[in-house]
């Protein structure tokens, strides 16, 4: 494995790991605040138990999210020093504000986790809200840094020099809104369905049904609403990508040829040698419609893009198909939940219904990983779209493959540990909380 590939793999691994914890860090505080609120309003102890059970699990995720985030802030420099050297001053603004948001979050978290029975109860509740708000804010800020890499702005690039730097303009680059919206929704979808799925499993096994039913409800309402909105926001992202990053967009669709009535490809196996797609379903004109809102206008295909500026087509395409496929699946699952809630109450406890949500447990996070693969692999070979190539940014240090193996080992061990600890938490629910019931 050469150093360049190792560096890219290490970055991808670290971010792919961190994103799971940061989604949970953004969304779980919101769920906890809701059940905490219900407890204070209704006095039903089940809500206090849910909040406390969640907060124990979340503490583990928080610690892991915080350390993996600290790693990332160094890794940007350890792996991509030449990128940070030029990009730091331009896209750093959201990072410094993010630093503030993290700090607020860490402080509020101290109050929240250790404040049970110590603080005024409304103040305690409020600190939970602050954790959630600053979590979402940091998510949005860091995504704005990433969207700058996709649509660089706020500087002039003249003869290899970065001039007239304007960090604020860089922060509000063209892509930031669609990316931030899509990411925030994704966090709610992924966490909502994952949490709901775990509680659905417990209902399925008839353990503490009352407890798990209430917990399921809070999680799934958020997950379902976000899942229904997600394709709309995805459409916005896709239109933006087509406009700003035609190569990424063409790779997502495995669109090899620029033709009138560009077809939308569903599924399919791109053959990069013969430049054709096999086995997929093509819907003529649909791609033109999605991008330009009429069926005729041709969408730029890979034939218009020099080979050396093209990303890896199969990876981008498959990742995109996975994300969109899951997106529509979760959309229907979300709609089904509301049908059950409003018209078909009995469904809520049917085995097929619970099984559906148990099956959906990991899907949201799978879509998150797939989506980031689309964004990041689709941007290659650029680290800053159109300005700097990833290969120019990599560290001169040799032997990165060994650090990559080390990171793989560490993240693998941590994942196993977190799953193990979470399993223990769930097992302890009856022992810890039944007596209050």
């Amino acid at each position, binding site marked *: 494995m050469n150093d360049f590939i190792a560096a890219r793999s290490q970055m991808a691994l670290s971010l792919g790991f961190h994103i799971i914890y940061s989604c949970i860090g953004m969304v779980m505080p919101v769920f906890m605040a809701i059940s905490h609120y219900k407890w204070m309003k209704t006095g039903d102890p089940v809500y206090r138990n849910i909040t406390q059970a969640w907060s124990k699990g979340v503490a583990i995720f928080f*610690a892991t999210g915080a350390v993996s985030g600290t790693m990332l802030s160094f890794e940007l420099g350890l792996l991509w020093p030449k990128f940070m*050297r030029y990009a*730091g001053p331009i896209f750093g603004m959201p990072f410094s504000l993010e630093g503030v948001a993290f*700090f607020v979050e860490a402080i509020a978290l*101290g109050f929240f986790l250790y404040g049970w029975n110590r603080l005024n109860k409304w103040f305690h509740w409020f600190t939970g809200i602050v954790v959630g708000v600053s979590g979402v804010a940091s998510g949005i800020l860091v995504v704005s840094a990433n969207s700058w890499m996709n649509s660089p702005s706020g500087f002039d690039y003249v003869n290899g020099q970065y001039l007239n730097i304007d960090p604020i303009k860089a922060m509000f680059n063209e892509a930031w809104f669609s990316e931030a919206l899509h990411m925030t929704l994704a966090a709610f979808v992924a966490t909502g369905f994952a949490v709901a799925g775990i509680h659905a499993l417990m209902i399925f096994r008839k353990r503490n049904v009352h407890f798990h039913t209430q917990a399921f409800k809070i999680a799934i309402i958020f997950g379902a609403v976000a899942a229904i909105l997600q394709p709309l926001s995805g459409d916005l992202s896709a239109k933006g990508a087509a406009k700003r990053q035609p190569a990424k967009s063409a790779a997502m669709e495995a669109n090899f040829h620029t033709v009138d009535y560009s077809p939308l490809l569903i599924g399919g196996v791109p053959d990069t040698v013969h430049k054709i797609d096999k086995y997929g379903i093509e819907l003529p004109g649909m791609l033109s419609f999605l991008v330009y809102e009429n069926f005729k206008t041709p969408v730029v295909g890979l034939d218009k893009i020099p080979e050396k500026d093209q990303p890896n087509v199969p990876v981008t395409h498959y990742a995109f198909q996975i994300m969109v496929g899951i997106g529509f699946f979760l959309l229907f699952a979300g709609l089904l939940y509301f049908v059950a809630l409003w018209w078909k109450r009995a469904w809520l406890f049917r085995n097929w219904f619970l099984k559906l949500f148990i099956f959906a447990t990991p899907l949201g996070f799978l879509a998150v990983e797939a989506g980031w693969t689309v964004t990041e692999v689709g941007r290659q070979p650029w680290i800053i779209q159109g300005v700097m190539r990833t290969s120019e940014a990599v*560290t001169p240090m040799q032997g990165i493959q060994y650090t990559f193996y080390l990171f793989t080992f560490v993240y693998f061990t941590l994942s196993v540990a977190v799953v193990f600890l979470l399993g223990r938490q769930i097992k302890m629910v009856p022992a810890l909380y039944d007596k209050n019931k």
Partner: protein
Amino acid sequence: MLYVDIIFLFFAIVLYFLLGGADFGAGIIELFTSDNNKSRTRKTSYQAIGPIWEANHMWLVIAVVILFVGFPVIYSELCTYLHIPLLIMLMGIIARGTAFSFRNYDAVKDERSQALYNHIFVYSSFITPLFLGITAGSVISRQIDPSSNDFLTSYVYSWLNWFSVAVGLFTVALCGFLAAIYLIGEAKEQSDIKRFTKKAVIMNAVAVGCGGLVFLAAEVENVHLAHWLFGNPVSFIAIIAASLSLVLLWYLLRNGHTQIIRIPAAFQVTMILIAVGYRHYPNIVMVKGGNNLSLLKDHAPLTTITDLGWGLLIGSLIILPALGYLYYSFQRKAE
């Protein structure tokens, strides 16, 4: 605004040393505590650092952010030449942070897994500040050599030298000392206070020893440390002040002021950092061949510096009161 950024950078580093350092120190103390007292030490230190440990470590993130936004050249050079010690430090941070929260939040407190978390926690509490210190030492040791093409010279001897290692050990000792002083104030029982006092005395002696080692190593590696420290009035005064505060500290402790002693301890460490920092200012990274990196020269364009400064100022209006209230609440509740 450049000076605002520099001041924030300095404060973030000092606070990380003081707060994060005390935090590491708690693990170091645990490492050197006999088995039958370990659980008591653990309990006291958990009560003391539990609610605030995450906030303590945010100072590091703030310092890194200021560096890469405001001083990107410095950040990228450090990350390149000190890749290895930074990496080891990061591994320590990961191991420590997760072990600390796993041991408190594991739903089943069985002996085997607790013992494992404790092991990871104490050893990583030692490794992390060791490599933090090694990194800090390398920054001023003049061993970073941009002209070299050879792997060992560029990426290994830049930090693996007597001076850097001695600074690393000195840092570990200081962390242990800070933690012991801090824990004296947290302990409620007389026997614990005695125990932590004894630890503080030992750590103090070790720190002085390691300090001597640093001077020795400096001679070996041709770092003119003595000349730097005593050759200019500010550093000289800072060193004297640091020594005097130590005397004050022991005097206060003998008279039973277990809380107040934190102030001279913190003051002492701050003075040491000032003494070292001031002599080079505005240079911050000493490089072989003399092309040192300077805070006043190697900074980002001024628009960025200004925006960063405002971000920090406004951010600190939110953070500092909240942080103060956090410390205050848990201090008061603990009593």
